[in-house]
């Protein structure tokens, strides 16, 4: 993984291919993270592409190559938070948004299992969803999540298990 370093160096010089190589290591997790915290595929896609632009633009702020993953996830987290701002009081329920016309047009098969899961995820509050998504897709532990979210790790842990309990409850309904 030490190759990271040379790719970061090239990216800093403006090599977009090198940046793409770094991105290729994390983009799936990034998209799925965004999908887990946001409401629609469209928003998740927006979030990732905004993050890509922002990350590339400020690549010189990345000081150690091995931090690429955590660094780009931090940007992504900020971008998703910004998008979440516009969700307050939205009259449309989230499940509706996620699986409507879009699915029909893409003729995408969405399993019942995944429906249920996403549905359950969306009963969580923003913090809880962020915590779960950050752990599952960014690979953060509770201390790191605490740092990212400005929370005590103990709070992260308790919110995390509260969130999982809620999901479980929803699942067994």
């Amino acid at each position: 993984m030490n190759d990271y370093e040379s790719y970061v160096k090239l990216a800093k010089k403006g090599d977009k291919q090198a940046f793409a190589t770094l991105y290729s290591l994390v983009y799936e997790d990034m998209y799925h993270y965004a999908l887990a915290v946001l409401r629609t595929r469209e928003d998740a896609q927006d979030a990732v592409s905004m993050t890509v632009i922002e990350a590339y633009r400020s690549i010189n702020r990345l000081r150690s190559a091995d931090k690429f993953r955590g660094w780009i996830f931090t940007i992504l987290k900020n971008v998703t938070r910004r998008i979440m701002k516009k969700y307050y009081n939205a009259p449309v329920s989230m499940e509706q948004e996620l699986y409507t016309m879009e699915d029909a047009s893409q003729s995408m098969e969405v399993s019942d299992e995944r429906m249920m899961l996403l549905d359950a995820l969306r009963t969580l509050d923003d913090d809880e969803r962020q915590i779960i998504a950050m752990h599952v897709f960014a690979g953060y532990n509770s201390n790191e999540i605490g740092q990212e979210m400005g929370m005590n790790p103990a709070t992260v842990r308790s919110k995390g298990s509260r969130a999982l309990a809620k999901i479980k409850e929803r699942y067994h309904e």
Partner: protein
Amino acid sequence: MNEEYEALQKIRAEISKEEVPEALRPENVENMLVGVTPKKKWYRRWQTYTLAAAAAVAIISVPTFMWLNKPGNNINQTAQQKDVDNAFDGVLYAASDYDEVRDAIKEVKQAQAPSVLDYFDGFVTRNYVDGDMKVYEEEAATDGATVGATNEAASEDSNAATGDYSATNLREVGIDEGDIVKTDGDYIYSFNNECEARIVKADGSKLELKAVINDDFDSTDAKINDMYIVGDKMVLVADCFDLDYDNERSDERDYYVINADMTKVAVFDISDRKDPERIALADVEGNYDTSRIADGYFYLFTWYGGDDIPRVYDEYPEASDILLARKMDSYTTFTMTSISLGDGKEVGEVIDDKVIYMDSSDVYVASDGIYIQGLDYSNSRNYTNILKFAYNKGHFSPKGIGSVPGNLESSFSIDEASDGTLRVATTVWGSDDWVSGVYTFDEEMNSLGSLSGLARGEDIKAARYIDDMLYLVTYENTDPVFSIDLSDAKEPKLIGELKIPGFSDYLHPWDDTHLLGIGYETDPDTSAVKGVKLTMFDISDPENVKEEKTTVITFFEDSQYDSVSREVPGLTNYKAMLIDPGKNLVGFAVNAYATNYTDYYTYDDAESTDVSEEEVIDDYPMENDSAQKNAYYVFSYSKDKGFEMRLEQDVASDSYANNMRGLYISDTFYVVDGDSVKAYDMKGETYSESGKLE
């Protein structure tokens, strides 16, 4: 635990089945980045050894053996252990030596992983450092930890403080708290995200930048979190990330070995406002939680999740200052450190410290004690344990432990009465029964009385204790304001209940007979937030609380937008509120945003090659069909006219108003927003801008 782990795996597995859109694939990155170029190199001042740093080194060599100064170590140590045992009922005990602590940590680690969230094996391949990974070279900085004065030849006019200026909105009168903006009546002090603190002379409309402090805290990466002004001293608290180097390769300094999260407290002598000088730099291993200044001493609260004992100034605290739980289920620690700010001792000297192995959720500091709240999830119903320490000139002494069912939902849920009685309001969270209660304790944390079964199905939104009365707001669809009489601590009594729509998130005493509530107006049917609501309650008869006047600010016509959000950052951070009944003003920032779903974010890269290097990330312009109002508001109140808007000041940059603060010095109001300061003449119906500094 296993079940939780499986749930997490399932979430990952299922969501990962979602195909990533074509446009986001790595091969399309170049399309995404058309016209985008990396910004200029980020300059950060790298550690150099200036005089200030040398002074800090000198302080490090003074260890913190608080109890070594006393005669008879062994006897003292057992006495100390006894004190802990007596006060904390054996729930916590003082360690005998470091091995005991490390064994306890090991046991916890072996018995169970502290949380399912700490498993990540199998989920994500993390790119751990191989030990040989080079740290990127920083752009060479010319002058390290510089404290730069602006080069204006302004003479120092010594305007004695009149006392007619605002202070940070505190949780407890007389116990100072840090914030991003401070004033002492002559100067405005602030710091920004770029680790810069500023001193601005404020003389009415005349604003003059005196100094910019750009200190690196002798750290690889530092972020200032809090600031205090105590006379001629400025205290900055920073969360730092320190890289350490492998000594054997000291000729190649950029070999990275370990890293550590540190909280650092820098004290500056600002007697010459144009030329501040760092006189102390204390460091404690772990992340910053909060801090206070009381009796002239600095009290620092940090938490640490590493698997060894957190160090203070690079030294382990005395074993007897480490408190272990009899039933350890986590090795996260809560550390309290007291630091001298003078008072006959060297500034920066550590007076006392306590490392407590307990998950803490919040800390409340009153004049009689420090109350550390820790959630206990080990039972089916969760409890909150409250540890009390007395403190005196920096020394901590254990007082007692109490336990209440449920959670403290707000920082204002807990209160120490003038006679030392502690009152706590909680909500017990259950799947379909939420219920609130009030509990009282004596000075030793022995239970005195309780009132339970309040507001079934609702949770506490706001609480405020005024002498022996507790006003409690709970919320489901309407907003009951409960009046609870605590004059007999053994028997708290519910004496009044007022039901109104919407709810208050924050309550603040206005005068002897009035209580100000700030919150949101909601639709009783849908619970949708319809506006920011200011309410003046008449509490002259606590049994019969009345709504005297209410104003709702909507910002937008809801009907014109698909989605509207309105948020008052001060409702989750009371320090962002300015409430001054004497001056008759209520000031706070609002983030309001309205959009239609056709909107989307676009990236404007027109100037991307020529943007300032310190530009913040929040700079995406919105499409037209949305509106936002991120602004600072000031209101005044009169019984006849209700709330009247005096000032509406938009945020300086295209971002949220979270970091805006308002303050006044005699007849001038100031709005501080990052590095920008605006002055307003407070005379007249509405404030008029009279000066600015950007």
